[in-house]
């Protein structure tokens, strides 16, 4: 379930930072996140 409670923009950078400072587990999360972004870019058609 995704929270529907935020009434302001939390900013992507501040969300990523929390994973960065999350220790070893956070590094794994960042790694997976970057991998997802890479594949999302690869599968986006270029006009």
């Amino acid at each position, binding site marked *: 379930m995704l929270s529907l409670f935020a009434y302001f923009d939390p900013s992507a950078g501040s969300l990523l*930072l929390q994973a960065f*400072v999350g220790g070893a587990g956070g590094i794994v999360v960042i790694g997976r996140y970057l991998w997802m972004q890479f594949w999302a870019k690869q599968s986006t058609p270029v006009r």
Partner: protein
Amino acid sequence: MSPVMSPVKFDVGSFRDRSARVFESEQAIYRTLNQESSEAWKRVSCQDFFQRRMSTGQIIPTTELSDSEIRRFLLPAEVTGVLKHERIPFISYPYEWPFALLKRATLLQLDLLTEAMTHQVMLKDSTPYNIQFRGTQPVFIDIGSFIPLVPNEPWLAYRQFCELMLFPLLLQAYRGIHFQSVLRAQLEGIPAKQFLQWIRWRDLFRPGVFTNGWLHAALERNAQQVSTSTVKDLKSSGFQSQMIQQMLKKLTRLVERLEWNPAATPWAATQWANYDASLPHVAEDLQEKSDFVRNVCQTHRRTLVWDLGCNDGRFSRIACEFATTVVALDQDHGCIERLCKSLEPEQRVILPLCMDLANPSPGQGWRGQERRRLEERGQPDLVLCLGLIHHLVLAANIPLPDVVCWLASLGGELVLEFPSKQDAMVKGLLRNKRDQYADYSLEHLVQELQKSFQVVRQVSLPSGERTLFHAIPQGKSKSADGV
């Protein structure tokens, strides 16, 4: 109670979060709930930690209205519940708080969030506008902020926390920059990019700056190109709530260690730090002034006292023995900070605030009504105006009649100290200026006072150049005569 038949008028400043809006009716404060916020309230309000925090006063005491009580009000259709809050004696804003009060508010926010998360509850926002003060005790007032924790979702309010709470504290602790004027101009806070512009290279290595400041700004810049939902992506990548708790621990340690020492930087030392030693009249007149103020205060108990130009707060301390709330205002941040720290930790009467009375807090935000101007936040029963009027007239160049008119508009009794032009401080103010202040005299002052007040008592102080007045607003003076 009779039903209120016209539609409730929501507080102009209560619109950002539509799920829980505040209105006032018959001197009481209410908050409406919609379907989601009602469910959140039911889940949160029965928790032990919530009830405990309410009983200690850290969360505003709140009760839920019954259906029959709700029917008294004409409410929008989406409202499914109404809460009633205890009233805060005097509303203040983060851009008026000294460093010490913003730090206490921040620590309360972190403490509440840390405990809430252990009970599967989250705070949806992290703004100091969710916190008020009773004396110097912070009270969390935004009940609508408590929501069920969504597992493994990042802390959505971290950016807001940094911009409105952490960066202002870091700027004042590390750079001595008074955050109050910045927050008054920027109600949404200080963005990371702007924070970094005030930071020197060597400050990057100080606790909290690199991670929360530099790295934050760098990630914000790079993440602007991302088109997908970062919240969803992080959850899919395995983000865990424990990461937030780790972060909260670090932030709490960081904030606990932050201090601002007004005397630390010689060129930044404030003018009134050593008021007692600075001028000869102070020691000579002190006892007489104290006795005068005490005699006025002890005639009867006051609900709200304003001490304008409070300096070290000695007269606020006298007033607080006979008042429910004393708001101590001064433009000198060092004095207010020292006053704050010198007060007993549990006291709930004196609220020290930083304010330039020649430029008091105006109406701010949307339509100039979201955050109220000073004069709209409560009528004082008694105003102490000691050692101030010459600064307003001779330094700020406000005409004497205008100052008296403003004091009269506050509506309360007045204790006023008037130094003549022979006074040492006044001579200092005029030393390098042309004396254009023909209206600054005892005779003119008495004339102006008598337009709006009845002067009950007038006393010359031992130093010879200062006069104290006790004046009662006309209209109230008849009832005073009968006492």
